[in-house]
Each structure stands twice: as C-alpha cells, then as structure tokens.
C-alpha cells in the first residue's frame, strides 16, 4: 500500500499549483480553474486521511466539498459571463474601475 504521506505530498503540490495559478494567470477562467484545483487538492488530502484513520466521515466531507464547489462553479461562471457581456473581455486586469 502506498503510504499516506505520498498522497499528502501530492495534494500539497496540487494546492501550491492552484495558489500559484491564481496569483500568476490573468484569464479569469484559468484563475477560476486554479481555485477548483485548490479545492480538489483538499479533497484528495481528506480522502487520504480518511482512509488512514479508517473513518467514513472524511468521505462524507468530500461529498459536501464537491457540492459546494459545484455551486460555486454555477455562480462563478454566471458572474464571469456577466463581466464578459459588459466588457467583452475575460482578463482580470480589465476589472480596473475601482482602485484603492
């Protein structure tokens, strides 16, 4: 069996990629995908821990997180659509009406 620390390492790497992607990329859709990557990294960690501890709670938590992520996608894409319709752009740097 693969030790749990491998999974945690992988999920840590995924989480870091998500954070970096959020900070570096400029396309709103890609930024949003990075956020989803962060959530899925957390899911992987929870599942690995749940298996290690031998409890079902973790798996239920993952279902809840997935539901929340799906709701977030629904709302998020609608907001991005609205932004695109009015601005004709999906670049985060175009959201610059308000500063400081």
């Amino acid at each position, binding site marked *: 069996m693969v030790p749990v620390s491998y999974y945690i390492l992988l999920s840590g790497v995924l989480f870091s990629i998500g954070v970096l992607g959020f900070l570096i990329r400029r396309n*709103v859709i890609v930024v949003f995908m990075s956020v989803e990557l962060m959530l899925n990294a*957390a899911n992987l960690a929870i599942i690995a821990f749940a298996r290690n501890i031998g409890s079902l709670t973790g798996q239920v938590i993952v279902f*809840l997180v997935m539901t929340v992520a799906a709701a*977030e996608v629904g*709302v998020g894409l609608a*907001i991005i659509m609205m932004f695109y319709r009015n601005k004709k752009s999906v670049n985060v740097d175009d959201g610059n009406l308000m500063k400081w």
Partner: protein
Amino acid sequence: MDLSLMDINWRVILPEITLAVFGFVLLLLEAFLPKDKKRITGHIAWIGIVLSFLFCLNLYGTQLSSFKGMALSDNFAIFFSFLFLISSFFVILQSLSFLKREEQVRGDYYALILFATLGMILMASTLDLVVIFLGLEIVSISLYILSGFRKKDLKSNEASLKFFLMGAFATGFLVYGIALIYGSLGTTNLEKIFILIPLTETTLPGKDFLLYAGIGLLIVGFGFKIASVPFHMWMPDVFEGAPAPIAAFISAGPKSAGFAALLRIFLLAFSSFKPDWILIFWILSVLSMTTGNLLALWQTNLKRLLAYSSIAHVGYILIAFVAGGNSAISGVLFYLSIYILMNLGAFAIIISMGSKDREGTDLFKEYAGAGLKNPFLGVFMAIFMLSLSGFPPTAGFLAKFYIFSSAVKSGYLGLVIIAVINSMISVYYYLRVIVYMFMKPAEEDIKPVSIPFSLGLVILVTGIGILAFGILPQPLLDLAYNSIF
C-alpha cells in the same frame, strides 16, 4: 457513522428551516407572480425573518444539541442568531424602497438575503468545522450574486467578480485547513478537538506540523472572510460596486458570522494553543487598524470610506482575541451588536441620499450642505459618525471601552495604546463627513430628499438604539455576558 445513534431534534434548526422555506417560496413567487404584484415579495421576506426570530426567542436558554453537536442552541448561538436576523430585517427594510427606486423589485433578491441569513445562523450555531464551512459557503455564494445584482452596471459586475474570485480563493485555504486538522486529529468537532489536543496520540508522522499548518490556513481563510489586513483587498471595491443595501448587509451580518466562528474555533477548540497563535492575531489586529484608518483618510467616496472604517473596526475586535477571557468575548458580542446598528444606520442614510441616476457615486461633494437641507438625515448621520469614531455618550464609545479594558486587564497595554492612537486618527475622517454635511456650502441648489417610511424607520431605530445603549448599556451587556459559550 451509525444512523440509529443519531440524535435528531428538529426544534433546534427550526429557525433555519423557516428561512429556507420562505426563501424557496420567494423563488417560486419570482417565477410565477405578474410583475406589478412583485412588491409583496419584500413583505413576505420580512415576515419570514420575524417568524424565524420568534422561533429563536423560543429556543433561548434551552441549551439543546442535535445531530451530534452539529446544530445546537446555546446562548451564544441564539445571541448571534438575533444579531443576524435583526440585521437582515433592517437590510430588507432598506431594500424595499431601494429596489423600488431602481425598478428592480424581484423576489430572488430577498430569497438570497434569507439564504445568506440561514448560512450565518448555521455558522454560529454549530460545533463542527464542516458545518461552519457549509454555512460560510451558503453566505458567500448568496453574496456573490447579490453584489452583482445590478447586471448592466460595470462597477457592480466588477465588484461581484472580485468578491467571487477572492472568496473562492479563501475557501480553498479554508478547506485545506480543515483537511489538515481532520487528518491530524481525526475529527472536525470543535469540542473533541479541544479534548484531543493535549492527548498526543500520534497517528501520523509530523502530526504537529500538519496541525499547525491547518490552523494557519484557517486563519488565512477566515482573514479573507472577515476582511482583516492583509486579506482585505476585496472589501472596498465590493462596497463601492455593490448595491448599497448589500454593502450594508456584508458589513453587518457575514462579518459577525465570521467572528462567531472564529471565537468558537480559537477561544474554544484551539485555546490550548493560545501562546502560538496570539502573535498572529496581534499582528493582524495592528495591521487592520492602522491600514484601515490610514487608507480611509484619502477616500472621497462615502461607501469606500465606510469599507475602510469597517476594516479598522475588525482590527479593534481582533484585540479581544489577543486578550481572551470571558470579558473579552462578551466585549466582542457587545461591539458587534453596536457596530451592526451604526453601520446599517449610516447606510440607510446613504441610500436615502442616493437617486437612481446618481447611484454608485456617493462622493463627499454630493453631501455638501445636505445636513442643513435635511436636518433629520444630518443629525442622525452625525450620531452614526460620532458613534463609529467612539465619542461618548454614544454606544460606540462603550463598545471600544469594553474591548480595550479587557485587553488592559490581560496586560496588553501596548496594543491598547496603538488602538487608542488609531481611534484618534479615525476621528478626522468621520468628522469630515459631518463637516461636509453641515459646514460646506452646497455646490448647486439642492432640494431636500423625501425619505420613504421604511428607510426612516431604520434610521430612527438604529440611531435611538445607539444613544440608548450608550446611556443604558446594562441590559445588552448582561445579555452578552450570559451568551458566552
């Protein structure tokens, strides 16, 4: 998970169920009511809030627990439920005339406010990290939609996009934090975490590291949600771009809900780690106060000014986390109740000063001379501003006083000195609003604005509340002191 052992007591979550039912009814009405009848949706919404309030009142003092501690009705939860329901009630009253002016009377707007309130109540009345997370997401997702409610308005779009991206980013940190805490302790129940932490049964190598990383990620996640510096960037933009009642709502309810969860997590579950996290909260508190107040000095937009003032107030409240102890917790409860009144009142005045074509600017110069033309608005704005800056005899002074004194008692004199200096800086920009309203001549001939009944009611009740609690704070203080977990 053994289902037969689940203890189920529906009475505990009756306030939440009421809100959910009313929210869904409003969604249906939005779909099926003809356009000229939609005005009743707002009234149905506040009736739902009042019903839920009555169920909460019925639960006060029962100390019930249900769903294995995932829903409970201790006094702390009920106190916060009162706060949320009262703030949502005022926000709905503000929205009644605001939406009519915007010609956007819609049921889904009120439904989302009810859902957000439901999420806040969930956050305050649970002992489980996962339920806190779910409540937080219900609140956040409703607010993302609400802050982008003016679909054609570029600023509203931008506010909603920024709020959404920042909020989702914070959610990522929060979930990962919960994952690490679950991995190192095997539970997400706050009371069990509190019991388990001293028993060092190592199930994993590097367990302590995981736990510390998890706590750090939780602080980052909640830092975004309560908007403390350096996680505050979204707040001024959202305040400026979102519809005014929603900005008021964000500053009142969701922020208090974040503090309710933070109080339970850090002063209950991780209280034995206090020496480790106290420095982080010290730094967050000082950064929030100082940055919030200094940036507020340059603002020319009243809504942005209130956003930065709100960031500064988060700094004052975080002092209580450093101080710890029962007097600090009751200080937070008192502070939040007063803060909600002040902010909702100030925003009610902003809404009554706005008009459809001018909505979304709210510059100071539009307020020049307005206090003399509209003495009612002027006098109450002066009360709210004085209270926000902490002048006696308003309640804002007492709220600050109780938190600062609890910190002095615990020996954090340096922090309190920084906070007092910050309060003095803040007087400058709060008084500037009053100066503009009463002493600057109006640029053009302005007519006195007509105040709709519902807005006038909000201004009157919040204003009188601030003065009343400033002179007779004892009932509210006793209530806050009895509501400590």
